[in-house]
């Protein structure tokens, strides 16, 4: 691990100001992803700003009937919150499908949104990777890419976003709140939060340098049957091959977001219009433009079948 200096921030704005003025600074909260990457020298911050002392660890009701989830709320606490379990079951289920008990006790809401990909070539510092080292090439294209993206990828990168939580938040239309060094606050709909990889896969979201996530806000509950189905190589403690977050209403309408298929949670408006006609009808627009390799072509039928299973579960 490269050496770094360390400070504890006193307020969100102070943290953002420190990050903006210090070359190579990064925030650290749970650290469960960042320290893993620092040990491999994939992340090499010169300065760490510890944000754990900021009072961003509460889940509060909003004026319009939703929930404001502080950036530092731990994954376990969010999944176990009675309001989340009752009104946003898809979120609770997605969180519980991710990582291990130890990691969920430490990992935070904001950190979960900002997880880096688990593409094996991003992790292997001996291999070219445009995300880790811009311009070096992509080893995953034509390589071992069974777990990688089939939608929204580019010739520069086919990495997937590894979060389960973000997929549920996409289905719930969450908004991400941030603060910058000058005190300016922003609300970013999660639909606009992640960037397409394009030619710049190292830029993963729309946050500005030094900008700090302070909360994720859920709109008022939409009801329906909520489910998160994650398909993986073992029954626990593994990243998704694909996942389906769904909210299905009595009349068959609803929302669907996919995980494990793209650089961000994947949601398509036209697919939701087709949802009352069943999984096959919805999967077609959901997977429109999919580009598969020999290794990950299985993801296409797997999405349709998993969606069918979720819809059956929702209607039973």
């Amino acid at each position, binding site marked *: *691990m490269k050496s770094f200096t360390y400070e504890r921030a006193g307020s969100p704005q102070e943290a953002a100001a420190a990050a903006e003025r210090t070359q190579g600074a990064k925030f650290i909260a749970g650290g*469960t992803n960042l320290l893993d990457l620092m040990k491999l020298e994939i992340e090499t911050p010169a300065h760490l700003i510890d944000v754990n002392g900021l009072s961003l660890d509460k889940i509060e009701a909003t004026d319009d009937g939703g929930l404001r989830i502080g950036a530092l709320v731990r994954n376990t606490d969010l999944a176990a919150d009675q309001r989340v379990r009752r009104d946003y079951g898809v979120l609770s289920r997605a969180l519980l499908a991710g990582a291990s008990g130890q990691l969920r006790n430490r990992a935070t809401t904001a950190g979960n949104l900002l997880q880096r990909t688990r593409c094996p070539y991003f992790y292997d510092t001996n291999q070219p990777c445009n995300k880790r080292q811009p311009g070096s090439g992509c080893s995953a294209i034509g390589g071992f890419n069974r777990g990688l993206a089939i939608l929204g990828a580019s010739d520069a990168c086919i990495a997937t976003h590894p979060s389960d939580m973000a997929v549920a938040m996409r289905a719930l239309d969450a908004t991400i709140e941030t603060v910058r060094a000058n005190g300016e606050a922003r609300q970013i709909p999660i639909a606009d939060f992640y960037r397409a990889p394009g030619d710049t896969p190292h830029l993963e979201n729309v946050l500005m340098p030094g900008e700090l996530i302070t909360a994720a806000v859920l709109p008022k509950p939409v009801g329906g049957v909520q489910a998160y189905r994650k398909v993986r190589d073992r029954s*626990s403690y593994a990243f998704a091959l694909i996942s389906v977050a769904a909210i299905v209403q009595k009349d068959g309408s609803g929302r669907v977001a996919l995980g494990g298929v793209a650089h961000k949670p994947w949601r398509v408006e036209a697919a939701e219009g087709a949802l009352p006609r069943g999984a096959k009808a919805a999967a077609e627009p959901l997977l429109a433009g999919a580009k598969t390799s020999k290794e990950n072509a299985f993801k296409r039928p797997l999405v349709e079948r998993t969606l069918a299973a979720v819809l059956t579960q929702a209607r039973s």
Partner: protein
Amino acid sequence: MSRSGNFETTRRDVLVAGAMTVVATSTTSKAGAQVRGPAGNAGKSSPVGDGPLSKVSMTINGSRRDFELDTRTTLLDALREHAHLTGTKKGCDHGQCGACTVLLDGHRINSCLTLAVMHEGDSVTTIEGLGRPDHLHELQAAFVKHDGYQCGYCTSGQICSAVGVLDEIRAGIPSHVSADLTVAPQLSPEELRERMSGNICRCGAYCNIVDAISEVAGRKA
């Protein structure tokens, strides 16, 4: 562990001495090359050389401890190398195996994926703080009774994790296999297996581990 005044040799002493011998040999044979000893990736992940220092005080197993550490020092390395509490094990050092599991303010975490300097004022409980050889924690006794291990390397992590699991079930925290999110979770083997999935046992003692935890859980239910 008492080392003064006698010639008692522990398994750890032998391992350390063995490691030193191999390092010395490889240094001689590859003069000038970077030496990575048999401690595996420790050469990369353990802080070496000069890095910024930071002071931190925490309570470990009920006693206050003050450290001045290279900022890179993980909580795991602080416990093992600085507090000399070697019951907590370093397995993968990347949060994948659970051997380093300790309780932080009562909650189980991977001590390898958190920096020691981030724990000013926190309270850490390691396997040494749960029970003593002459007064075992009930989970330690149950692991012995049910043979919940073979080599034992993962055991301290398994037991610290199991303490956390039973507290989490008692607190009503659901899991991936809980059928209904709105009711209290059950104490079934299926629940225990899911909740313990962050602790890997290469010897494959899982059945006995589940038996040991189930027995203690049943006593408390």
